């Protein structure tokens, strides 16, 4: 478990360092994800090492958003008089983005024959 955690943190650290060094608009952990993915592809041993711990962290991914979410409660008044407009924009645009994104995925998958089971 300690080895897996070390590897995950090392990937995050490498990602943070690289993205700052290059001035890329990507968060360090996202670059770390790409790095870990490349390592897992390169070595089945690394994949086997990291899977149990990594899946343990991911099992309760929802929990990790709770502290930031609690911060929202104190900032609700920041929305001010425009709060209703902003909330409406968020709800409508999220529904639209979900529908368009999934719809385009399904249509292009059908056109290119990229079947779910194929």
């Amino acid at each position: 478990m300690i080895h897996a955690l070390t590897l995950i943190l090392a990937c995050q650290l490498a990602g943070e360092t690289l993205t700052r060094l290059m001035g890329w608009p990507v968060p360090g952990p996202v670059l770390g994800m790409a790095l870990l993915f490349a390592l897992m592809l390169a070595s089945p041993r690394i994949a086997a090492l990291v899977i149990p711990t990594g899946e343990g962290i991911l099992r309760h991914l929802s929990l990790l958003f709770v502290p930031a979410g609690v911060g929202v409660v104190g900032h609700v008044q920041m929305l001010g008089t425009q709060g209703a407009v902003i909330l409406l924009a968020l709800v409508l645009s999220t529904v639209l983005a979900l529908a368009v994104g999934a719809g385009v995925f399904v249509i292009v998958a059908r056109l290119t024959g990229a079947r779910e089971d194929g």
Partner: protein
Amino acid sequence: MADFTEIWSYLAGDPLIWLAATLIAYVIADAASSRMGRPAWVNPVLIAVVLLGALLWLSDTSYDTYFEGAQFVHFLLGPATVALAIPLWHQRHAFRRALLPVMAALLAGSLTAILSALAIGHALGLSPQLLATLAPKSTTAPVALGISESLGGSPTLTAVLVIVTGIIGALVVTPLMNVLKIRDWRARGFATGVAAHGIGTARALQVHPQAGAFAGIGMALNALLTALLAPWALGLFPR
């Protein structure tokens, strides 16, 4: 025996109590969600946040004090994001086959998320500063804050909008996809990651492993694309 107020004044300043409270609130919320069969409208993040918000208000505790304990949980967001490589690795063959739909859905979903929010906000008279704050709301928090700041928005308010967007996405995705009769787990998950970043991804992981893996990729790719698209999109809505 020590006075209760004495114990409380010791505990209230200690990170332990708010770390424990965060976990307890989540365990309660997760048990409620699990017992009811994980329906979309019983969202564990939302329930835990409401419970803790009430607790902070009742005990007159500042968010800074709370965060001293909760930061240990918050810290794990970074490693968890790195760990999203694991579901992606499990789905690597499915992912390779779906490269074209992934790219098309990324572009369509990302553009829709940014442009529709800006169009609605613009039509209803939001200030240019609020539009800049709103533009990156579908992308993961660290990227969204950077974009908001560089466009002249308010990063703090963007952080709030990002989280609210994630919760909205997690609440609506299942009923919406059912109404639209979209059953492809790849499509459902990917669109969720693009529109509702990590909170949407957490929901997708609960529902189906393939949806979770594709949501993780959607979140990662949209972080990159929103950084490129948002400045251009904002320029389409002159004051």
